[in-house]
């Protein structure tokens, strides 16, 4: 189970923290605390029962001023019809292939630490394109052991090459984009694999 305290990128829209919000008294905070606790200890078990029984998409319960809503994306449930054939994307939808909008963290050197798959705790994030242009991987790069920041190739922007670098120490996996493909900014272009775990041979520099 993920540790809640370490999940800032999954916690969206913490609004109201701006300076326009009035100061809150200890009593108000206590009342809120009690209300949320009632939700957690009293209602959640009942909700779980309801949701799992009928394949529901969404359920919402109110308790005083508080609401709790549980929902799954519509696609997972298979209901909801659209007028157009196009996929109408919800903003910042879970599982969508991009970093959260509220925390864009491009690094200055043209690579991105938090790539589109960075949220996947299981894998090593792929190398992403630093710009929009034509992808040129280094020949024979796949399978090499690299350090974070090592050059894996370039993206050609009107003749100016922009470096594609390894986002972390690891082993270069297969190419996601083909050499010569047009790629967009932030697009994953080269897969990365984790280094072999302890016990396997290491070059000694990996912490």
């Amino acid at each position: 189970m993920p540790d809640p305290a370490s999940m800032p990128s999954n916690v969206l829209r913490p609004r109201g923290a701006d300076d326009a919000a009035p100061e809150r008294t200890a009593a108000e905070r206590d009342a809120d605390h009690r209300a949320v606790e009632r939700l957690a200890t009293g209602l959640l078990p009942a909700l779980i029962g309801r949701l799992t029984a009928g394949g529901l998409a969404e359920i919402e319960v109110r308790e005083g001023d508080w609401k709790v809503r549980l929902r799954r994306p519509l696609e997972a449930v298979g209901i909801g019809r659209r007028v157009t054939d196009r996929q109408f994307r919800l903003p910042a939808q879970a599982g969508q292939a991009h970093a959260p909008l509220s925390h864009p963290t491009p690094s200055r050197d043209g690579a991105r630490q938090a790539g589109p798959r960075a949220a996947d705790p299981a894998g090593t994030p792929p190398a992403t394109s630093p710009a929009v242009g034509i992808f040129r991987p280094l020949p024979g790069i796949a399978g090499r052991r690299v350090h974070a920041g090592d050059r894996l190739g370039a993206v050609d922007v009107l003749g100016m090459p922009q470096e594609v670098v390894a986002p972390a120490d690891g082993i270069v996996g297969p190419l996601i984009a083909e050499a010569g493909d047009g790629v967009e900014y932030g697009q994953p272009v080269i897969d990365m694999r984790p280094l072999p775990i302890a016990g396997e041979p290491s070059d000694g520099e990996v912490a």
Partner: protein
Amino acid sequence: MFHRILIANRGEIALRVLRACRQLGVEAVVAYSEADRDTLAVQLADEAICIGPADARRSYLSAPAVISAALVTGCDAIHPGYGFLSEDDGFAEVVRAHDLVFIGPPSHVLERFASKEATRRLLAAHGLPTIPGSDGMLRDDAHAIAEAERIGYPVLIKPSAGGGGKGMRMVRSQRELETAMKLCRSEARAAFGDDSLYLERWLEDNRHVEVQIAVDRYGSGVHLGERDCSVQRRHQKILEESPTPALSETARAELCEKAIRAAVAAGYENVGTLEFLVDREGNFYFIEINCRIQVEHPITEMRTGIDLVATQIRIAAGEPLGFTQSDVRQTGHAIELRINAEDAENDFRPGAGVVERYLAPGGPGIRMDSHLYSGYEVPPFYDSLLGKLIAWAPDRATAIARVRSALDELVVEGIVTNVPIHRALLVNDAFLDGRMTTNLLDRVGSAAFLAAAARGQ
């Protein structure tokens, strides 16, 4: 006509250009920054391509990123919208060098009109009045007095160097001029190391009136009437209308005809706007030309039925205009309200955040150009324009009634908007009488303005 256009902009204008492409049967690719992934234009586009991070300098303002995106997606033209790279002659030239078409005036035209000072001289030479001023720098007090006499008081003393109000004084008489000259010279010398001064006529209570023009590659040009943009807050337009209540029909016709004649003579090409100041007596003075589509273009579209963005694209594609001045019919009255994410009650501080609920107003004569939808997150990185509420009606009173009613229908929840200032405007006597001048809102103060409206209602 083009096959595929890259839209290198965001927000409502990206959507507007997309709609023009659709109508012309041209594919539209939207270039977006990481912060604009969820915007409506991206969702509706035939293709969308991320060109960089939220920082506009690395996305919307990056000429290499934009041009590379056009090449990668197989576009044959780039529409820059407004702002960003839209009037950058260097960008237009690089676009051309990559065998793409810049949708706007060609680079050599942009270059010709790049300097405001040079543009004023050029268009003055083609018959447009500019603000009267002294003949060059003031040699001495006697020269200043003579020139002020010729221009007519009040006059503005302006330093040749710098800006920011230093060394600048408005004077109403010879006595004031003589006193102020010394002060201005010393201020200017202290501030800029250059104490040369010149004079310009002071326009009290001026109005901002602009003329929309369209000129094809073959020198055929038409004007599409004028717009009054006098309702401003700190030089930002917030409400525009057409026709201007400041001028008679004859004066409007004269203004528009002079503008298009001068622009064609000076070699302008594509869609553009000539901006004028109009004084209390109805004299107009050319100040600058905008070589792009403008935010307030819809009020002209409502009055003429002509799609300005489609016209812009057609001209850039080399098509002849296809109509003449006598084909252009202007009917009724149109008003546009700029709906901004800013807090009118807190010094118009810009806002951002999630639009919890959005509902556009509708009905006869109402048009809402906006990229909002329920659940859309307004990013904090760009301008605060959320959309434009436009109303047309056969006459000004009905247009005001309609736009007021539409404003009551508009729902933008979760984000603070400048709707209160519009409500206040729409019941304000100066506005209702058509007497708004560019300085009025700032002179009264927005807070006092809002309070007065609240009392009056």
